[in-house]
């Protein structure tokens, strides 16, 4: 993987709706590049004979029966919401971007 550059960070910040100053972008680009390099060292340890994995323990087929469990009331669901209206979460106007 190529090192993370400033443009990558700016792009991700935009996607994540995080406002970042020029200095922050510079600093973050540097820090993320170090993190990515550190993670990269793992691939030096694993040879071609080691398959990629998403889970460290060999476990599969963990299922739940299709039985209804607990739910929140609308009041509970909305208790942590910054804003709500008509029992629904109220969010700022969304431009057609997602």
């Amino acid at each position, binding site marked *: 993987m190529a090192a993370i550059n400033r443009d990558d960070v700016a792009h991700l910040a935009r996607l994540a709706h995080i406002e970042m100053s020029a200095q922050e972008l510079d600093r973050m680009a540097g820090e993320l590049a170090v993190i990515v390099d550190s993670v990269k060292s793992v691939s030096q340890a694993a040879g071609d004979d080691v398959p990629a994995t998403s889970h460290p323990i060999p476990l*599969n*087929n*963990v299922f739940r029966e299709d039985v*209804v*469990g607990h739910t929140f009331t*609308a009041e509970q*669901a909305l208790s942590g919401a910054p804003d709500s209206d008509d029992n629904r979460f109220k969010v700022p106007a*969304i431009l057609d971007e997602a």
Partner: protein
Amino acid sequence: MNTDAILSFEEAMEKYDPVLGFEVHVELNTKTKMFSSAPNVFGDEPNTNVNEVDLGMPGVLPVVNKAAIESSIKIGLALNCKIAESCRFARKNYFYPDTPKNFQTSQYDEPIAYDGYLDIELSDGTVFRVEIERAHMEEDAGKLTHMGGATGRIQGADFSLVDYNRAGVPLVEIVTKPIEGAGSRAPELAKAYVAAVREIVKNLGVSDARMERGNVRCDANVSLRPHGRERFGIRSETKNVNSLRAVEHAVRYEIQRHAAVLDSGEPVVQETRHWHEDTRTTTSGRAKSDADDYRYFPEPDLVPVVPSREWVEELRATLPEPPAARRKRLQADWGYSDLEFRDVVNAGVMDEIEETIAAGASASVARKWWMGEIVGRAKNADVDPGQLGVRPATIVELARMVEEGKINNKMASEVLDGVLAGEGTPAEIVDKRGLAVVSDDGPLLEAIDAALAAQPDVADKIRGGKVQAIGAIVGGVMKATRGQADAGRVRELILEKLGVTV
């Protein structure tokens, strides 16, 4: 307002060859959600079918719904797919308030089902094979309602309200390979394909399959290329086309729009289009430049799904008769000609006819009533024939009254109107409206005498052996009795009266 230029469909077809592709989302009708035990129910009060998993609270862990896996495997099998030996979930990352987690749990490089096909029968009986690329599992998103603004649409909204009841509802997304060679039948094929998928999931019992509720949603990809060129053109993706008719219209419209763009020498923009049912046009959504920016990665909170071959075969054994095979069987059972049967299928009354026959009507009587009487009434009312609410027992009763000579066909049709108007059962309506075939010969003989006297030349012809002229006399009698006479009996009496034996 939409100002896109379009070519006529015929001209577009002369110049270009359409290539289609579909992503159909099917909402499963499990009792609970894909990864949480909150109920999967449509139409409840907002934000009441949610728990901490659906709301994406910190530290929560999803657990896969076994019934949803089984339904997904069944869909894969019904689409003639291979079922993965092992597959994983993946996070599809995006920031939008319809998912409180900032990602949708989906499948990426390891779908549960892949490499299938579906044979689609067009209205004239032509069979067209649509190749299925994959069917993968994912979760539905919450429902946004855009408030304020001029149109209620997303553009110009002041704020949005979010209901997460739908967040986490199990979905299976069925993706086709590019569909080539449909030519001018592309719009029809589009509709028939989505109809076939809907029919299959309904038949499997894994989805309520109601398009008006969003249980089955279609994204339609369309591109054009000049005839003879192999390379595909640039495609547009029209989102959430949510009725069968709209699928056909949207594909047709996009073909016409692309053709006009290409004719002007411009490239088609690869983008999402929004379908508008009111104007039957599409408008530009976002450009697809960020299409590959979902930063998929394996979902660390869910372990792989490894369906054993035994499990897959167990599920295969539970599959109902496929709709296409069922149609073949019913046509043979009922003895309808290809044309008759196709008309029945196209009119959407196959299930109704089956129920009517099961209730005791003959195959020909059931067809006569549904195709001859009810389909036309449904068309006038602009509803599906099944929605008129005609019960099989009603048709059986009407047919029996006709057979027994109590009423004739014309009256039976009138009685049906009465039933539909909520006036009661057929027997009650016959009573109330005084509809009964006049079977007492007395009044009939009087009417026959009058009719013969009125047309002495016709009477002579019949006496002379031209029995086919009898229609004029029968008609006169029917008119005089206001349609209440039994035409067969009238005919007998006329011949008797004139001393003609046939």
